[in-house]
C-alpha cells in the first residue's frame, strides 16, 4: 500500500532522474565543445515499464571508466537503482543544437516535476486531507 507503488508516481520519478542525468551529459558536451576528439553522448529513453522494480533501465556503459551513476544512494530502494544507458551521439553537434536540447530538457523536467507534484496532491485530496 505504499504510495510509491503507484505506477504513475514511479514513472514520473524515473523521468525526473533521467532528465537530471541528461542535463549533466549536455553540460559535458557544452563544456567540451572545443576539445579535440570529444564525442558527444546521449541518453537512451528510459524504460517506462510501470512494473515494480522498473529496472528496465540497464547498466551498460560504453567505457567502464565513464559515467557510472552511483548505484546505491543512501536510502534508495535498491530495486529502483536508476542507471541509464548512454550511447554515442553520432557526429559533432552544433552549439545551437545543444542549447535547444538544454532548453527542451529544462521544460521537460519542469513538466515532469509539476505532474509529480500534482499526482501526490491529488492522492492527498483523495484521502481527504489534500491541500
Amino acid at each position: 500500500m505504499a504510495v510509491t507503488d503507484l505506477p504513475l508516481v514511479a514513472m514520473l520519478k524515473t523521468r525526473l532522474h533521467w532528465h537530471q542525468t541528461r542535463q549533466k551529459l549536455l553540460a559535458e558536451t557544452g563544456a567540451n565543445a572545443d576539445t579535440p576528439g570529444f564525442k558527444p553522448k546521449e541518453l537512451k529513453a528510459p524504460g517506462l515499464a510501470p512494473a515494480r522494480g522498473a529496472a528496465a533501465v540497464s547498466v551498460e556503459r560504453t567505457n567502464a571508466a565513464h559515467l557510472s551513476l552511483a548505484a546505491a544512494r543512501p536510502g534508495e530502494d535498491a530495486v529502483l537503482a536508476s542507471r541509464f544507458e548512454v550511447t554515442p551521439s553520432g557526429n559533432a553537434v552544433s552549439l545551437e543544437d545543444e542549447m535547444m536540447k538544454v532548453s527542451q530538457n529544462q521544460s521537460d523536467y519542469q513538466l515532469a516535476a509539476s505532474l509529480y507534484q500534482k499526482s501526490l496532491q491529488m492522492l492527498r485530496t483523495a484521502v481527504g486531507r489534500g491541500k
Partner: protein
Amino acid sequence: MPTTAFAAGAYAATQGLAGLGQARKPAAAGAAGGEFGALLQGAVDGFAQSGRKAEAQALAAAAGKADVVDVVTAVAESEAALETLVAVRDRVIAAYEEIMRMPI
C-alpha cells in the same frame, strides 16, 4: 525526522483498537475488525517504509551527499503516505466508535 519513527510506533499502537473491536463483537465486527486492522497495518507499513527512506535521504542531504531529486521525492512521498495513514486511522476510529454505539 526521528518523529517519523515515533509516529509510526504510535500509529502501530492504534491498530490494537481494531483488535479490541474484534474481541467485543465477534459476530458482526469480527470480520470488519480484521479488515480494518489489515488496512491500517498496510497503511502503517507503507508509511514506515517511505518514512525510513525519507529520513535516510534527509540525513544524506544534511551531510551534503544526496541527490536533490531523491531527497525531495522521498520526502514528498513520505508526506503523502503519512496523510494516507492518518486518514485511514481516522476512518477506522470513526467506524469503531459507530459500531460501539450500536445497541446490542
